[in-house]
């Protein structure tokens, strides 16, 4: 198309727009959630750069250094086989984040289309979509995840899949309510009035205005998914050893409590800090997206 040379600046503009609105959002967040945001950046950085950051390999066994308490060489001590706990925590970040982000992404990818299409079109499509989501949601999340994992076995991908499916109805409901209210707005009518098809109306006009609460919920869910992953791994139903994950590390270290406390307490801290960071960020985002909620 001849438009090519015109399109490019407009795309750049769009990115600039995104950045601008992201900066705006950041500007409106409180201090706690700003700190959390940077903490999360740090955690993500640690996960991505794990081989660089970690002082040792997480798999390297060294029986000479078995069960050493925290020292300069091993700031978080070593476990029974002499593996460096800090390095294992750093590599464990990868699993936790992969499960946290992956399952939430899957939940959003499943729930948002189902809920928004149902809400937008209404009628029997809506009844079918939302009733099937009701069925999923009527089981307690952890119990459902446990049951499925018990059947299909534990692995990183199974965890992501199961937790994602368990989360999806909540996104479906959330977006459903938003879409229901937004589809009554005049700008949606106007979009239909200019002849835009249903898919475009939904995608361009409704979803961008409905997605705020989903983002907030997703932030909380990352934290929850990390906890579920750790719980399942703790029970031996999650990611299988020797892959280091926080849950497995706590489970292993539990046998050495209280004397060799560092084996389980440091991964515990890692979970706590990560979960806290995501929750605080979620709170901050909620305040930005939904100021009324805070007023109440």
């Amino acid at each position: 198309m001849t438009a090519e040379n015109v399109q490019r600046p407009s795309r750049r503009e769009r990115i600039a727009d995104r950045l601008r609105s992201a900066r705006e959002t950041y500007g409106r967040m409180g201090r706690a959630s700003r700190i959390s945001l940077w903490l999360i950046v740090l955690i993500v950085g640690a996960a991505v750069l794990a081989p660089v950051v970690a002082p040792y390999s997480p798999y390297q066994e060294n029986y000479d250094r078995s069960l050493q308490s925290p020292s300069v060489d091993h700031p978080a001590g070593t476990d029974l086989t002499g593996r460096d706990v800090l390095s294992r925590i750093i590599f464990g970040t990868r699993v936790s984040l992969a499960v946290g982000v992956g399952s939430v992404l899957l939940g959003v990818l499943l729930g948002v289309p189902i809920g928004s299409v149902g809400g937008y079109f209404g009628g029997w499509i809506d009844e079918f979509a939302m009733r099937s989501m009701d069925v999923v949601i009527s089981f307690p999340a952890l119990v459902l995840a446990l049951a499925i994992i018990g059947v299909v076995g534990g692995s990183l991908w199974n965890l992501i899949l199961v937790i994602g499916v368990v989360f999806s109805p909540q996104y479906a409901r959330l977006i459903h309510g938003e879409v229901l209210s937004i589809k009554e707005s005049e700008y949606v009518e106007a979009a239909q009035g200019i002849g835009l098809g249903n898919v475009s109306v939904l995608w361009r006009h409704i979803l961008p205005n409905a997605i705020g609460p989903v983002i907030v919920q997703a932030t909380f869910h990352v934290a929850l998914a990390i906890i579920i992953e750790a719980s399942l791994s703790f029970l031996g139903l999650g990611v299988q050893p020797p892959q280091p994950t926080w849950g497995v590390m706590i489970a292993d270290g539990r046998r050495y409590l209280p004397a060799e406390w560092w084996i389980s307490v440091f991964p515990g801290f890692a979970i706590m800090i990560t979960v806290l960071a995501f929750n605080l960020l979620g709170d901050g985002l909620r305040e930005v997206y939904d100021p009324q909620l805070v007023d109440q």
Partner: protein
Amino acid sequence: MSGSDEPLLEVSGLTKHFAQNDSLLRRLRPDQSVQTVQAVDGVDLRIRDGETVGLVGESGCGKSTFGRLVLRLLDPTAGSISYRGEAVDEFDAAALREYRSHAQMIFQDPFGSLNPRYTVRETLVEPMEVHDIGASSAERVQQSTELLERVRLGAEYLDRYPHELSGGQRQRVAIARALAVEPEFVVADEPTSALDVSVQVEILDLLGELQEEMDLTLLFITHDLSVIRHVSDRIAVMYLGNLVEIGETESVFTNPSHPYTQALLSSIPNPDPSATPDRIPLAGDVPTPIDPPSGCQFHPRCPKIVPPEEWDHDQRIWRELFRLRTRLANGEIEPDAVRSTLVDGDERADDDAVVDALYRNQVEERVGNATDRAVPDSAATVAREALAELVVGNDDDAVARLEDAGFVTVCETEEPDLTTTEHGTDVRCHLHSEATRDHPDRDELRERNREKIL
């Protein structure tokens, strides 16, 4: 401003019923029923090429629904819409999209009608993209700039977001969006009512200018008659989903024929003294369209309601007694409350006293407010008898007493037809419908009434 006689848009029998609290589950349950709201109820209207038709009515009368039906933003329950001879109600998706490049809407609320995440540029370019207007993005942006200038904004607004604009500026952008597809027909749904008074005038002027520049046909929906006089060639007055009067703007303003139009006109501040008499108060609120009144839907509020021919006295007295009947039927009169007031005031509070008190404030005072004539004795007796029935608890008998005595009217039993008046306007009212006068049912009614007290 008048155009040719060829109808651009012809609507007949257009009807829209909304189901309330509808859901699949509710439909499956036998103990629940779905109520319908009769928002638009069989409207006929022709709009000629190039003219501006003003659609007036109180809020909730169905005028906005009508505008949306005409544009097929809502699907009609019944009736037909034809645009340049093509059946809009039968359009498939492709034809409908094509129709959208001819017919556009300007919405009421400029704070709600623009996507908050769209810049002005995106808002204006999108309709062009949908309808393949402009060969390239650059051309579309160029056209957007021209549109902005048309609505008296400049290119500097292209990259603004709605929250950076004032109400008037937003409405200009919304108008520009409607014009982006180069339409022939525009429905403007209360385009000024959400704006400050000073801005209203600007927007009205702008619409008028654009209409002339671009040769638009305009359906202008409003509750504000004073606005419409300056913009419309013709006026259609809507009440509870029906058109009650249609005519040239000047004819309607100088000779309003329907009692509802007269009441609306009399409520305009600073009326033209030669055209409108004193303010005509409307009784009560607009009834809900869920269960609209029978016959002429305006009859519970109509100041000119037609008494039976046997009534030889002042119409206003009859009207007040008829309204007494309506209030009795609706259970609006509470004798117990009156009784306790009497008791509190240490007055006599037996049944007779209550009837007296009721008669005083339900009949005598109201008639006194309406006219200086006295209630004829026979009618007063009937009213007292009815109130006496109410006081002893026979509500139904109270209503029946008044009905038997001839306090029934053609206005509640028959729906008036549209009749052309001497002023060239079309009116839906028994005061003007000759046909109803000679209606056999009506003769029968008259015979029956002869034998009664009146």
